[in-house]
């Protein structure tokens, strides 16, 4: 789907000559001439105009009727009058009509002061009302959901929220009920509107009909400040506008970046700001003292950490995650490599990926932009669930498929929310993304596929169907991949990119979804075992990746661990190994906002972490866009800038001094990372810059030699057992659990099963079960999902209780809690019976002896 390239035309509006792209809607084109045409229902983000509210009526010469500017494409030579007598009369009429049933309760309305209805009434209304009949009444306000209140009296029936629900997340939950003047917005049977992106309707509503329940009555527009920021709760890095009152964040709004978020936010990003101001948040340093964590002053904590790290020396390892910035990553690298003499640092789970692989993956020629998802011929979603891993992309993919006919192809282990939108979807065996990529590359190249297909656990017919679909789709193809696909063999993805010729295509390429918000930036800043800043050779060779770090901590070879916004017991696979690793380590220094399980048990020093509104620095979007974080709110409690904490530790350990300001530190980063060379903080401004588009960027050569595929052995079915696959829900985050408004969404372990498997195991939906890999077990509720692939049980990762990373797989058994308990009871009973029998024989023997 090539992007449209409109030509420029000239038209006249209210006597001004204005240039605009041809076919732009008049309502938008008018703005280019500094003329505002009032609109209510028009919102380009929602797709084609619907012409419902009639607010935008204008006069166009040569047309007998007034026209709606929101739906009239501008043409060369068009002559438009927005304030002619006829237009004015019609505009006043529409305002009058809209107000006759409006309660006019502006004084107590949250929208007051930032309300389009107020503004348009003032600007275009007739300033009078002739309506003296009774208005229509509804009970108000009502809960549309735990997050959103609806006041139906204020609703002007613009249809925005309903169109949103149907056209953007495509959840079809919101509908207009009844008709005519009795119409009202609602849901089927009054069910709450709970969905991952529901909060966007609050911002879309042009009146105070839909309001945020967490924000209701918290502030008035004249008491608040607006601050641009970026959400760092996932790699999407959506641009946000924060509503700040008295240095507290009270609301998160979108800051429409067409290349990042397209003007939407997920509910996590919109409401989890509450976690900034809750009691559970760590806001002062702590040390473990006599086995328990206790709050201390900064000096004490710093001294403790410095002493421990000095003892750790080159036996120290470090992990970074969460929303840690590039600058923090840079300093963490300096601390480890230059000060402590260790290169064991990583920013992702699993085994280390080699430097040539990272460099090849970062090749700008292979880099796809976010907006390519909307205009490519096809998108292959590979080994990720956008809705959970980078939520906002779910909306972008739907948009491309819906509006531009982008072919959507899905290759995942678990059923995807996008399946119903997809042109083709295939399932591979859990954890076998790399094998799938090899198999697909082979199919596209016309090479034998059997070995790889078997290792991937897919039927060759399905594989060829997918390959054909990709081949027939067109040249511009984007592969949206989860970084998990690099486990096993990172060469697989590169082979697939090569087979599709992605390096030669402008509108296609690779777009990787890291597990953490700034995964790409941390890597590029040098938080990876075998590369320094800018994916250059590290100052120290021989670094180990996360998995090896765990092994070596557990064996005692490494003794200290520095954790920057990550808790491997919660976030990484093999919780048991990490438990042992942390238990054995003599020092665990962590920057954290919440006491997650690994830290609660094992941290020796904890520094309070910043949230993104408190932070200064840069982060890098998965598509290479370097974005700037500015301070938007004051630090809570005793929180200090994390980069300063790292700098202080470096200095106390005798390292080279860190630049004195955040700005200077960012400049140092741009210097250290060669392909960030052209960047300046001011250049990043509010929208960021994609380094793969910068001229200086190509320090990464194309030199990459494909190696033979490394295929793992096929996963075999085992009688009475299922394979286990894992995923992380969008709601699996401490910030969700800690935000009062979102807490109701906190996930509890559930095991997703195909109906056939459930039947074979005699399990019912919602039944409580125990899942065991033979040694370890987790408890869960059964969830039957129609699209779940047979033979595999899916469990959630990153849960504080019963997280799937406790299990090792690949096979598990599932039994009901009831049967496990019955068995345990039987065992106890048997044991008791045996003991009773024994006592009896003993007593008898004694009695015999006595006699």
């Amino acid at each position, binding site marked *: 789907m090539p992007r449209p390239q409109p030509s420029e035309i000239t038209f006249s509006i209210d006597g001004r000559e204005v240039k605009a792209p041809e076919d732009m809607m008049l309502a938008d084109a008018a703005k280019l001439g500094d003329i505002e045409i009032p609109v209510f229902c028009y919102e380009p983000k929602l797709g084609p*105009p619907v012409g*419902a*509210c009639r607010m935008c009526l204008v006069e166009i010469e040569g047309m007998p009727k007034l026209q709606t500017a929101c739906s009239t494409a501008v043409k060369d030579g068009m002559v438009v009058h927005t304030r002619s007598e006829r237009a004015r009369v019609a505009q006043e009429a529409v305002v009058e*009509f809209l107000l006759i049933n409006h309660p006019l309760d502006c004084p107590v309305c949250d929208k007051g002061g930032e309300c389009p209805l107020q503004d348009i009434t003032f600007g275009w209304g007739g300033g009078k009302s002739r309506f003296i009949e*009774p208005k229509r009444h509804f009970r108000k306000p009502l809960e549309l959901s735990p997050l959103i209140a609806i006041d139906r009296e204020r609703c002007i029936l613009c249809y925005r929220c309903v169109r949103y629900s149907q056209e953007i997340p495509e959840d079809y939950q919101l509908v207009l009920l009844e008709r*005519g*003047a*009795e119409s009202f917005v609602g849901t089927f049977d009054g069910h709450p509107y709970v969905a991952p992106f529901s909060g966007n309707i609050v911002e879309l509503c042009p009146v105070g009909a839909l309001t945020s329940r967490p924000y209701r009555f918290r502030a008035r527009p004249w008491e608040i400040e607006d601050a641009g920021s970026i959400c760092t709760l996932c790699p999407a890095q959506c641009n946000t506008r924060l509503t700040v009152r008295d240095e507290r964040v009270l609301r998160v709004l979108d800051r429409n970046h067409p290349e990042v978020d397209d003007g939407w936010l997920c509910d996590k990003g919109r409401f989890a700001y509450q976690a900034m101001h809750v009691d559970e948040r760590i806001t002062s340093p702590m040390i473990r003292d006599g086995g328990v964590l206790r709050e201390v002053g900064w000096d004490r904590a710093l001294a403790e950490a410095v002493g421990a790290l000095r003892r750790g020396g080159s036996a120290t390892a470090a992990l970074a995650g969460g929303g840690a910035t590039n600058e923090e990553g840079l300093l963490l690298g300096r601390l480890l490599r230059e000060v402590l003499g260790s290169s064991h640092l990583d920013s992702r789970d699993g085994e280390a990926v080699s430097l040539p692989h990272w460099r090849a993956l970062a090749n700008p020629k292979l880099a796809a932009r976010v907006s390519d998802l909307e205009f490519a011929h096809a998108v292959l979603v590979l080994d990720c669930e956008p809705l959970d891993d980078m939520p906002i992309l779910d909306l972008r993919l739907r948009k491309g498929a819906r509006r531009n006919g982008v072919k959507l192809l899905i290759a995942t282990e678990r059923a995807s929310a996008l399946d119903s939108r997809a042109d083709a979807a295939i399932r591979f065996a859990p954890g076998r993304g790399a094998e799938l990529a090899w198999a697909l590359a082979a199919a596209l190249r016309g090479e034998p596929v059997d070995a790889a297909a078997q290792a991937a656990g897919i039927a060759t017919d399905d594989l060829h169907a997918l390959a054909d679909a990709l081949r027939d789709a067109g040249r511009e193809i984007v592969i949206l991949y989860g970084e998990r696909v690099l486990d096993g063999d990172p060469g697989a993805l590169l082979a697939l990119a090569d087979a599709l010729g992605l390096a030669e295509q402008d509108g296609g390429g690779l777009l990787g979804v890291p597990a953490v918000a700034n995964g790409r930036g941390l890597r590029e800043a040098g938080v990876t075992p075998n590369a320094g800043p800018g994916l250059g050779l590290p100052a120290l060779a021989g670094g180990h990746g996360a998995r090896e770090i765990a092994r070596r901590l557990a064996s005692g070879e490494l003794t200290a661990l520095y954790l920057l916004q990550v808790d491997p017991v919660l976030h990484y696979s093999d919780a048991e190994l990490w438990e042992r690793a942390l238990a054995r380590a003599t020092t665990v220094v962590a920057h954290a906002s919440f006491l997650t399980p690994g830290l609660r048990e094992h941290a020796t020093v904890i520094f309070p972490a910043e949230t993104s509104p408190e932070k200064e620095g840069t982060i890098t979007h998965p598509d290479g866009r370097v974005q700037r974080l500015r301070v938007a709110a004051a630090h809570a409690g005793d929180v200090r800038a994390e980069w300063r904490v790292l700098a202080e530790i470096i200095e106390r350990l005798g390292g080279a001094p860190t630049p004195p300001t955040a700005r200077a530190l960012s400049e140092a980063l741009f210097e250290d990372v060669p392909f960030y060379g052209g960047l300046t903080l001011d250049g990043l401004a509010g929208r960021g810059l994609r380094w793969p588009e910068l001229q200086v960027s190509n320090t990464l050569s194309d030199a990459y030699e494909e190696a033979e595929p490394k295929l793992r052995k096929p996963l075999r079915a085992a009688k009475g057992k299922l394979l286990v696959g894992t995923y992380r829900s969008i709601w699996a985050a401490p910030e969700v659990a800690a935000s009062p408004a979102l807490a109701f969404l906190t996930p509890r372990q559930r095991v997703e099963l195909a109906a056939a498997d459930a039947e074979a195991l005699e399990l019912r939906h919602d039944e409580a079960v125990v899942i065991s890999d033979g040694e370890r077990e987790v408890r869960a509720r059964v969830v039957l999902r129609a699209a779940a692939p047979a033979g595999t049980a899916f469990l959630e990762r990153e849960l504080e209780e019963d997280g799937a990373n406790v299990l090792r797989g690949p096979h598990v058994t599932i039994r009901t809690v009831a049967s496990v308990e019955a068995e345990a009871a039987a065992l106890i009973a048997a044991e008791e019976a045996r003991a009773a029998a024994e006592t009896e024989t003993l007593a008898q023997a004694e009695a015999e002896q006595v006699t």
Partner: protein
Amino acid sequence: MTQALLFKDIDEPNLADIAVYERRGGYEQLRKVLSMSQDAVLSELDASGLRGRGGAGFPAGRKASFLPKGDMDKYLVCNADESEPGTFKDRELMQKCPHALIEGIVIAARAGGINRAFIYIRGEYEEQAQILDRAIAQAYDAGYLGERILGSDVSVSLVLHRGAGAYICGEETGLLDSLEGKRGNPRLKPPFPAIEGLYGGPTLINNVETLMTMPQILRMGGNKYAELGVSGSSGTKIVSVSGHVQRPGNYEIELGIPSREIIYGLAGGPPPGRSVKLWFPGGSSAPVLTAEDLDVPYDFDSLAKAGSMLGSGAIIVVDDSTPVLDVALKTARFYRHESCGKCTPCREGTNWTVKMLERIEAGEATPMDLDIMASVQEQIIGNCLCVLGDAMAMPIGSMIAKFRGEFEKHMQRAQLTGASA
């Protein structure tokens, strides 16, 4: 005075049965179009000058020619929603002669190069739906519908779909949404259905009567058909006459005859001793005319010149026994009830108008309210998404303009008695 084309055999016993219909020459025109080129069919329709019988009066041949040529999925939708108050012609036509509709559908499909057709029939027409179902099954069995009709390379499938009781689903784009399984709300035009209609494909939408006229046109030849009627309004029209007349019912007339001949000549005029006060010439959406207009020729252009419209061809007569306020209230309430609510002027304007009329009825209004009411009608007209808003505002506006004195008298009387008169 009457001219029977569609109604020629209408009272033939069992005409709804395919054998009877065939005996009367039925399906011969279908056979004929199978061997004609698409362009030849189109040019017959064009030559006939047939204008749509559903309300808007758009030339039928021209509309069919708007559909893009090519292989994409195209659709024909027969609008059998017939919900315009006073209109009951399609009911009789479908009930008594369903096969002529099927034959017309195949002809129109041929003209548009279409092979999927639907009939959208209003939910209340249960009996007619059953008759159509039977007729469609017979036509399939006889090979007049389905793949390769009568061995030709023309294929047309036909599905009957029943509405659920909403006037707005007679509006062509609301109908399309409803047919797609959505809430029946009108769509923004352009794009017009001929370009982007049902399921996004090019779609031809015609009224039952329009389609049923097509076999007649092919039988007679377009030029011959055009000789009937008057210039700009060729052919015959079924007129539904109701209200205060002695012989209400459907009459087929040649277009262009004086309206008086229909109301008095055919329908017998008001009961003895009463006189025509006002009449809707084309369904309740048409601005009202008065006794002075009885000699206006009954055709599209003459009625438009007289300030009203031919619409669906439903004449509703109101005699001097009925207060104009009652007529206005009844009319306005209908449109308030049927407004889909999508656009502001219609949704709020119909509701406001009813409330004002109720206040007038209750004796709580002043002549100033009449001005407000008239201005509200003007605020609606031309400003809505579809023409349902206008369909209330135009008749109400015309009643205020033509019967202002009566409204004012009512107010005075009501104020004096302190209650509704």
